[in-house]
């Protein structure tokens, strides 16, 4: 066992950066905060890669499985004799993989932001929030127990809130940040209750104990059944609800498209590559429990994932805001990952889905961050998010164009790029375990290729719009991250994930199954071909199709009216039909009752105040008659 205590620095450096730039950022020139943040992140990235190399290769004994180990742990609070919350650092294949994802993308985004955010008001604030986010995300990834994960889960949520609402004078950004926070908070309610149930049943928060095949969560499947599902199944479904909220799964996805109000680097970091996959990570973390103790909960995961990916892919085909298209695409891809986990079994080749889900998480982080950063460069150049304002940009922005194209090809699943490998594994897993879901995913693969190339052609080809000023290629601080990520998108697929990240820590044999791979590549190419016909040159076809599909198109364009449903629930029901009557009830009934008591006393005082007439003779009369009465009582009646 080797010493990994230094990994504690990975979350602590960003925390220190956050406090430092947050408290003193306004004292320096903005760029200083940016450089400090980026340098710090560079160190974090180095440490992460070092950890990964050590964990996966140098310290690894050939032929042995990968075990999880605690590099550090300290007590945070005792809830009761049995339940203690610790804070610590857990090193195992998926956490190390996430370290790479988070540090790489975060570092790239830091560099990119130096250029993208240049001259913005609150530059220092932006970097301090980024550090806060990186800290929280690292804490989440390295959590040794589910409660620590919940702690950082909330912190990630709040950093997302702060970053979405970065342009806080813009009402739409404010409401988007509010929405994101409240929706995920609602999902976290489920997560929290799930944790409560899980910890109540197993008396532990610790991941190592929970996921151990001989641990209490798996062996003592206690608790009475409720609605036909066991207690642990309910607990895990509720935990998944938290994950679904953070990962924007249907029906808790509505915050994600709106979250695009945040600065684009933030969208790339939080809402594409890292935070939104936290839900996948959570399920992966608890995977043995899901798989061995609550397969029903795993089915829920699979179907929610599958449905969300289809749902989002359909919506993505109709949107015109490029960031929203990417947001729905993210949702769709995360659906893939969830589905992969959902159809997976435990151990050996059965755990293909688990590996594939994590693999896709990894490759997706690369190419989706690349897409978002590319979109940021485009927005930076044309000052618009709408693809109607774009077209023919390939001449002005060659680097962005090439990298964007690579990313689009990757996500479309073109062979030899990373997306192909991971997506293919997912489809294989689904093919073996769940045919209906395979068919859905197969269709989604085609849709994905289609909407991505719709996006690509509308931006870089098509009719050339008249720009107010000539668009220009982004500065080097922005293009270098693009190139690095493009490199990652191409080659990440060659990592031997089936040896490194597996459900039980043991490597297994995986190979490309041509029965799945060839059709999936073909449908990808078909999607690209259709997009090419429709959008390469400006044509009438899209318009005609839109009218042809009529209602359906409108439904999809309006995101199936999910926002309206939510608005109805929040604005109408919660505000108007609960909160308002409660406020009224409180002021008029409860308080009215108190006032009524006061009133009654006041009224009775009015009634008896006539006795105090001010007439001395009346007082005298009462006095005398009273005395006489008393005398009579005492003498005769006693």
């Amino acid at each position: 066992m080797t010493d990994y205590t230094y990994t504690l620095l990975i979350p602590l450096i960003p925390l220190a950066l956050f406090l430092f730039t947050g408290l003193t950022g306004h004292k320096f020139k903005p760029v200083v905060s940016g450089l400090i943040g980026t340098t710090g992140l560079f160190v974090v990235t180095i440490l992460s890669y070092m950890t990964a190399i050590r964990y996966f290769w140098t310290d690894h004994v050939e032929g042995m499985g990968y075990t999880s180990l605690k590099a550090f742990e300290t007590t945070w609070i005792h809830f009761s004799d049995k339940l203690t919350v610790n804070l610590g650092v857990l090193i195992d294949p998926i956490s190390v993989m996430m370290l790479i994802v988070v540090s790489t993308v975060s570092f790239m985004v830091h560099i990119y932001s130096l250029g993208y955010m240049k001259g913005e008001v609150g530059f220092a604030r932006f970097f301090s929030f980024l550090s806060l986010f990186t800290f929280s995300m690292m804490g989440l990834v390295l959590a040794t127990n589910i409660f620590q994960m919940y702690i950082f889960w909330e912190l990630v949520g709040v950093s997302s809130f702060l970053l979405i609402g970065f342009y806080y004078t813009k009402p739409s950004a404010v409401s988007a940040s509010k929405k994101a926070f409240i929706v995920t908070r609602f999902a976290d309610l489920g997560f929290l209750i799930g944790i409560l149930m899980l910890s109540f049943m197993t008396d532990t928060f610790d991941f190592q104990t929970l996921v151990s095949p001989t641990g209490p969560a798996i062996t003592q499947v206690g608790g009475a059944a409720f609605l036909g599902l066991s207690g642990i199944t309910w607990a895990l479904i509720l935990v998944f609800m938290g994950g679904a909220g953070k990962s924007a799964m249907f029906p808790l996805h509505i915050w994600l498209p709106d979250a695009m109000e945040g600065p684009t680097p933030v969208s790339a970091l939080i809402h594409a590559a890292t935070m939104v996959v936290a839900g996948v990570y959570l399920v992966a973390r608890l995977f043995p429990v899901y798989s061995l103790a609550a397969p029903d909960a795993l089915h829920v995961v699979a179907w929610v994932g599958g449905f969300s990916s289809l749902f989002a892919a359909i919506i993505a085909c109709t949107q015109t805001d490029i960031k929203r298209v990417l947001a729905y695409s993210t949702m769709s891809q995360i659906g893939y990952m969830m589905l992969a986990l959902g159809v997976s079994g435990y151990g050996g080749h059965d755990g293909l889905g688990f590996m594939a889900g994590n693999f896709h998480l990894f490759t997706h982080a690369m190419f989706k961050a690349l897409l978002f950063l590319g979109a940021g460069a485009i927005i930076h150049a044309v000052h618009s998010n709408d693809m109607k304002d774009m077209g023919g940009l390939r001449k002005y922005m060659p680097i962005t164009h090439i990298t964007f194209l690579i990313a689009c090809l990757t996500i479309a699943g073109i062979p030899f790029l990373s997306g192909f490998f991971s997506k293919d594994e997912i489809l294989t897993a689904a093919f073996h375990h769940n045919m209906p879901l395979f068919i859905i995913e197969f269709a989604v693969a085609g849709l994905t290729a289609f909407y991505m190339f719709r996006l690509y052609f509308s931006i870089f080809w098509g009719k050339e719009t008249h720009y107010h000023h000539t668009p220009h290629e982004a500065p080097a601080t922005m293009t270098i991250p693009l190139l690095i990520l493009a490199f990652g998108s191409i080659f990440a697929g060659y990592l031997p994930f089936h040896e490194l990240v597996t459900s039980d820590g043991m490597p297994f044999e995986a190979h490309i199954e041509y029965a799945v791979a060839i059709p999936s590549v073909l449908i990808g190419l078909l999607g690209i071909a259709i997009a090419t016909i429709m959008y390469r040159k400006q044509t009438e076809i899209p318009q005609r199709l839109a009218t042809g599909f009529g209602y359906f198109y409108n439904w999809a364009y309006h995101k199936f009216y999910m926002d309206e449903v939510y608005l109805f629930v929040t604005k109408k029901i919660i505000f108007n039909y609960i909160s308002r009557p409660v406020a009224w009830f409180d002021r008029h009934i409860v308080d009215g009752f108190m006032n009524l008591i006061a009133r009654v006393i006041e009224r009775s005082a009015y009634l008896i105040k006539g006795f105090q007439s001010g007439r001395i003779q009346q007082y005298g009369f009462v006095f005398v008659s009273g005395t006489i009465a008393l005398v009579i009582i005492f003498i005769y009646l006693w």
Partner: protein
Amino acid sequence: MTGTIPLQYFLIISTLMFFSGIFGFLTRKNLITMLMSIELILNSVNINFVAFNRYLYPDNLHGHFFTLIVIAVAAAEAAVAIAIIINIYRNFRSIEVDKVDEMKF
């Protein structure tokens, strides 16, 4: 002398005086007459004091002392009362007791 007039006679006289005082106090509207009624009450009490002292404790003088104190207090009280009545007259232009009912509620 003890045998000549029975105690009841004094008590009857004082009771009559007391209740005429009470009656006068409760019915007369003029403040001066009311004051006079109060004097009647006080004096009826004085008679009682003296009479009881004489009949029950002939060796003591406590009853007499009380009577003297009452007379002194009554004098002082009359002085104060008349001063108040004068002030009331100045303020209300009347010494009708019904008009003086500001002290209420």
